[in-house]
Structure formats: C-alpha cells, structure tokens
C-alpha cells in the first residue's frame, strides 16, 4: 500500500513540477490574469484570409484579454487537417501548435492573449501549415504627423517644440519629454530647471519650451504620449546656430548690391561724359560734378541735335 501511495505522490509531484515549469517558461499565452479582483476586459479581433498573407493593425489603449481568430479558406488542395501555430515578433510561441480541421471549407485558429504591458505588444501571427499567415500588429495609438526637418533656432533665443496626436485617436493620459544623450534618453523635468524648460500639456497636444538656448542643446528631443498600456514616442530635432551664420550671406549680398549700384551709376556717368564731349559745349555749366538731372538735360540737347542731323 505505501508503495502505491508513494507512486501516486511522486506522480502528483511530477505533474506539479511540469505545470510550474510551463508557467515560468513564458508569460504564457494562456496564463490567467494576475489580478482576480478586476479581471481584464476581453477584446476580440478576427480576420478571414483570402490570399496568402495579410497584416491587421490593432490599436490598444488599456490592458486587455485579446482573443485573436484567424480563418483561412485554404488553397487548391484542401487537406482535411493541417498544422497551425502562432508567432510573436517572428518567434514561434511554445506549445501553440495545433491540428486544424477543415470545417465548412475553412480552417479556423483561435487563441487568447493577455496584453498587460509594453512587452506584450508587438506582432502576433497565426500561421496555417507554413503557407498562409495573418499578422496582427498590436500597438498603442501612434503619432502620425512627425516633423522630418529640424527646427532651427539661435543661441540665446527660446524655442517651442510641439508634438501632436491626431484628435480622432484616444487622448493620452499625459505627455513626457526626453532629451537624447550618450546613454539613450533622459527625461526632462521642468521642476528641476524652471528657467530652462517648461512643458505645456493640452490633451492631444504638448509643447516643450526651452529658454536660453546654447549650442549644446542641439540634438533629438523625444515626446512620449502616455497610455495605460504603453508610451508611444515621437521625435523632434533641434539645431541651434549662432547669429553669425545668416549674417555672413547677408553681408555678402549687401556688398554685392552696393557694387552693382556703383557700377550702374558709374557707367551712366561715363556714358554721359562721352556724349558731352562728343556733342561739344551744351547749355548750362561745364562742371565736372554733373548731377543726373543735368546729365540728362545735356543728353536731351545732344540727342535733339542728332535728330536735326
């Protein structure tokens, strides 16, 4: 009797060990919710595949129990059963392989996932027999309108950088701003340096004001829209230049204009002197410093003389 009890005890122990082993290996696609008091809401997404592959975007705000269902009509030869499995970010999920039966000329794959934090987001794919697949891209609302050109500002000046979430998407809880440095991103806290930084959050928009710019402030700034599930990032590039940069082309152009004007006026003076000496004595004084008015009076008289000739 004790031997059979021992065997039973040993089997139960083995069972327990293997169960725990499964539990600790991956967060587990079918692991139960951790918080029994407020269970996660359920969300269902499904897609019927017509071709061989498709990508579906799923926008998530809060932690959910996501149920994904894939349906495939099959190709020319429709075997009665094929293997289907799930992938996350390209890697096959453990123990997700199942045999799918052909029902009503269709193959169905269904799986529940617990999406609680940023690691759970990503690309989930259901694959039918290595031929057809549907990708579900899970992500928090993305910022669409990203400014690709840098904002240019000047040393000692102040600058306003904005990030905007489209108003048809859910409103972020709050916004965070980060500065890029050698070790990645560093969050900006205006309270620490109120003379330098100020953050104005306004629902779908956020503004970072930086005062008293220096050339060291050049670089990438990141804004993050905070949602319960994760934070979506966008970036703005800042370029700080000194005032001498535009001053150089400015002075060059001013000098060029002065040279042009001088050249035109000198040419005119030389032309009128030529006419004057060619025409001989014209009316009026014969001073060297002729004003343009007098120049033209002489020109007029000389041209009239030419007309008579």
């Amino acid at each position, binding site marked *: 009797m004790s031997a059979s009890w021992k065997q039973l005890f040993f089997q139960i122990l083995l069972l327990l060990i293997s169960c725990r082993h499964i539990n600790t290996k991956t967060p587990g696609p079918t692991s139960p919710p951790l918080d029994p008091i407020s269970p996660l809401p359920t969300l269902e997404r499904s897609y019927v595949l017509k071709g061989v592959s498709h990508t579906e975007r799923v926008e998530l705000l809060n932690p959910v129990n996501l149920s994904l269902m894939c349906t495939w009509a099959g190709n020319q030869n429709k075997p009665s059963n094929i293997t289907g499995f799930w992938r996350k970010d390209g890697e096959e999920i453990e123990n997700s392989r199942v045999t799918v039966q052909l029902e009503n000329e269709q193959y169905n794959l269904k799986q529940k996932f617990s999406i609680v934090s940023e690691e759970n987001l990503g690309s989930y794919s259901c694959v039918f027999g290595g031929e057809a697949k549907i990708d579900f891209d899970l992500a928090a609302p993305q910022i669409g309108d990203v400014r690709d050109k840098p904002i240019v500002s000047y040393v000692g000046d102040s600058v306003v950088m904005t990030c905007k979430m489209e108003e048809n998407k859910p409103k972020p809880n709050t916004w965070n701003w980060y500065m890029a440095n050698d070790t990645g991103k560093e969050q900006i806290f205006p309270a620490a340096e109120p003379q330098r930084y100020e953050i104005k959050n306004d629902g779908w928009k956020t503004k970072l004001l930086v005062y008293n710019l220096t050339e060291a402030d050049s670089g990438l700034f990141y804004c993050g829209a905070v949602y319960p599930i994760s934070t979506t990032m966008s970036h703005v590039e800042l370029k700080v230049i000194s005032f001498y940069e535009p001053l150089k082309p400015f002075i060059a152009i001013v000098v060029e204009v002065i040279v042009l004007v001088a050249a035109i006026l000198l040419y005119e003076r030389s032309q009128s002197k030529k006419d004057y000496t060619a025409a001989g004595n014209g009316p009026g004084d014969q001073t060297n410093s002729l004003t343009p*008015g007098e120049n033209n009076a002489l020109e007029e008289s000389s041209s009239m003389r030419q007309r008579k000739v």
Partner: protein
Amino acid sequence: MSPAPADQSARKPLDGGWGWMVVIGAHISIGFAYATPKALSIFFKEIQEDLGASFSEIALISSIMLAAMYAGGPVSSAMVNRFGSRPVVIVGGLMCGVSMVTASLGTSIIYLYFCIGVIGGCGLSLNLNASLIIISKYFLTKRPLANGLAMAGSPVFLCILAPFNQYLLDNFGWRGSLLILGALMLHCCAAGALMRPVTPPHTLSSCALEKTVEEQRNNGKTRLKRSCMKSAKTFLDLSFFKDRGFVIYLIGNIMFIFGAYAPIVFLTAFAISKGVEEYSAAYLLSIMGFVDMFVRPGTGLIANSKWIRPRIQYFFSFAMVFNGTCHLLCPLIENYAFLVVYAVFFGIGFGMVFALIFECLMDLMGSQRFPRAVGLVTIIECFPMLLGPPAAGLLVDIYGDYRYLFFMCGSVILTGGIFLFVMNIYNYHMLEKEKQNQVRASEVEMKQTPEAAMGHTEPEAQEKNGVLRDTRSERAETPN
C-alpha cells in the same frame, strides 16, 4: 495750363535702347512687390509656433502688407512726380530691406505687423508705382510689350522665392531667413539705379518750370516751393472721376480684383476636397505660376501687334471674360487631370489680364496723367482686394462647398468683362461723336476768324479731352 504739352509731344519716348534696361529694373521691382507678400506665407507656420499666435493673426501680416502696398499708391505717385522714379525706387528698396531686417529681431506679432506689414508694404508701394510710371515714360510704340515683360516679374519672382524661402527656412530658421530676404530686397535699389530719368525730374511735375536747367536754378526755387505745396494737397486728384473712360476702367477693375485672388487662395483646399493628395494639390499653383510667367510677355507681344493695339481695351475685356469662364467651369471638375488643365487655363487668363491691366490705364490716360491715375486706382483697388478672399471664405463656411466660391468669383469677373466690353464700345462711340463736334466747331470758327482760331483750338482740344488727344496720337503712332 502751360505749353508743356507741345514740348512733351516733341520729346518722343525712347522705345528701346536704355529702355530695355529700365524694363529689367521694373521687372525686378514689380517682381518683389507682388511676390513678397505671397512668398512670406512660407514662414508663417514657424512664426506662428514661435510667437504663439493664431493662424488668422499671422495671415493678417500678408493682408496688411498688401493693403499698405495698394494704399500707398497716391503718395508714391506724388513722390515720383516730384523726384522722379529713381530716388523713389531706391528709397523703396531701402525701406523693404530695413523692414525685413528689423522684423527678424521681432518678439511679438504686433511688431511684425508694423515692420513687415506697414514699413514693408510702403516700401513695396513706392517700388510698384514708380516702376509702372517710368515704363510709361520710356515706351510708347512698344509699351504693351514692355508692360508684359515688366509684369512678368511677379510670377518669375514667386517661382524663385517660394522654393528659395523654403531652403532658407530649413537652414536658418525664420529669423535668419528674414534677414537674408531683407538683403535680397536691396536689389530693388539696384533696379532703381537702372531707372535713369528721362528728363530732369522738375520739368514733369505741374509745379515745375519747363525752361532750361539754368533758369530753374536762378529763379525757380521760390516759385517751385509754392506751387509744389499746391500740388501736394491735390495728389488725390478726384477730377479723374469726371473722365468716362477712367470710371469704366475703374469699375471693371474693381470687379476683377474682387474675384481674382480667392480662387488662388482656395485652389489647394478645393483640390484636396476632391481627393487629390496634398503635394499634387500644391503643385497646381506652381503650374499656374509657371504658365503665367510665359503668358504675360506673350500677351504683351500680341497686344503690341497692329491689329490688337488700337482695340486693346476690347482685348482686356476678352481676357477678363476668359478668366471668368474658367472659374465658372471649375466646379464641374472631378479628377486631377482636369484640375491641371484648369490650372493651365487659369494661368493663361490671369497672366493675360495682369499683363494688360496697367497698359490699358496708360492707354486711356496717356503718360502725363497716368502717374496720378495709377495712384488713385491702386488705393481704390485696396478694398476689393481685401474683401474678396474673406467673402469667398465666408461662402465656403456657410455652404460647406467650394463650388459657390468659384461660381461667385467667375460670375463677378465675367460680368466685369462684359461690362468693360459694352461700355468701351459706348465710350469710343461717344468720343467719336465729340471729336466730330469739335472738328465741326473749329471749322465754323475758322471761317469766322482764321488767325485767332489757329491759336485757340489746338491747346483747347488738347486740354479739354486729354484722353482724346492721347488715344488719337497713340493710334497714329502704332506703325507696326
């Protein structure tokens, strides 16, 4: 008045030679005048973010600049009459340069209104009017061509400034860009240097002595001052309203300006509403500007031909009718290809009208009365220009559809064109009648007192209807 008219007709306009350099100067000057208010809008988004202003507050900068440019017309004309075109354009160029440079240091939107809007606008108005006036002095037989070439400056500079401003903005931000743009606008001073005076500046104004330079210096100064004062008070000469041709031109012009700018402002938005992508929609305006660039000198060339020149007012009304019809047909367009066709025809129509708009005024008024006339016309045109786009915008807001905007603009321009056509027929008919009456009257007088009549009728005929004399002499002087 004075025997000046006899002198003027003896002094034939150059119609070539240095005149073409003056056309280049006018091209640059007019180019900056029309292109700058539009090209500045590229900076508006950046300025808006930096100064924390709303979109309508920023757009007001352009409006103030355009309003100042048009409203400064009479002052500019008076100054050109007094000093000649060259100093006025040089001062205008300096004002523009200074306005942009000071604006680059701005920290509030009111400061920008004053710097760019008021000072910049005044500088541009000095440039614009002085350039037009000097063309009227240098050209007669080739004047439509010269006008077409000079007015082509507007689309050329817009096509150059728009991408250039974008390049400046990407590299220097809006402050540095305004600084460099200010330096560029100093080229108006170089353009002014090209505008050699035709005659000594004093002999052209009504307060001048028409004798030689010597007499001016000797006894001219005191008399000059007193009569200058008189003319300065009357620079807004309302006697023009008694001239039938002027009033007809003015009414037609007001109708055109009211409907002209709104389609440009809303074309991109209309295209986007029809499903066109944003870059392709912006491309439509570039197409229009590009076509405009070539149409203006082309129209000038056509208007110069011997068939069109005597009937230039009818050609102008045809151009307006063409423009109006274009706008009326626009709402029927549903796809991008036809929008491109519309943009091309719009460019053609717009270019034709603008090439002729000042040429027709010169044709009506003659080179003597043109300076004051153009000042009056530009200040009156200020109102439809400022009211047109907001009225069109209101239509869009009420009906939520761009169709009614195009219907309104098209119908107003079309009506203006037809009005001009009909009224010009009437005007020329009346002028012919008046001429016949005068000829008959002078024949009667000649029979009675031969010598006295010879001395009387000529200056009388000249004085009574300056239009008649000018159009007759101009029609006589179109050999090609």
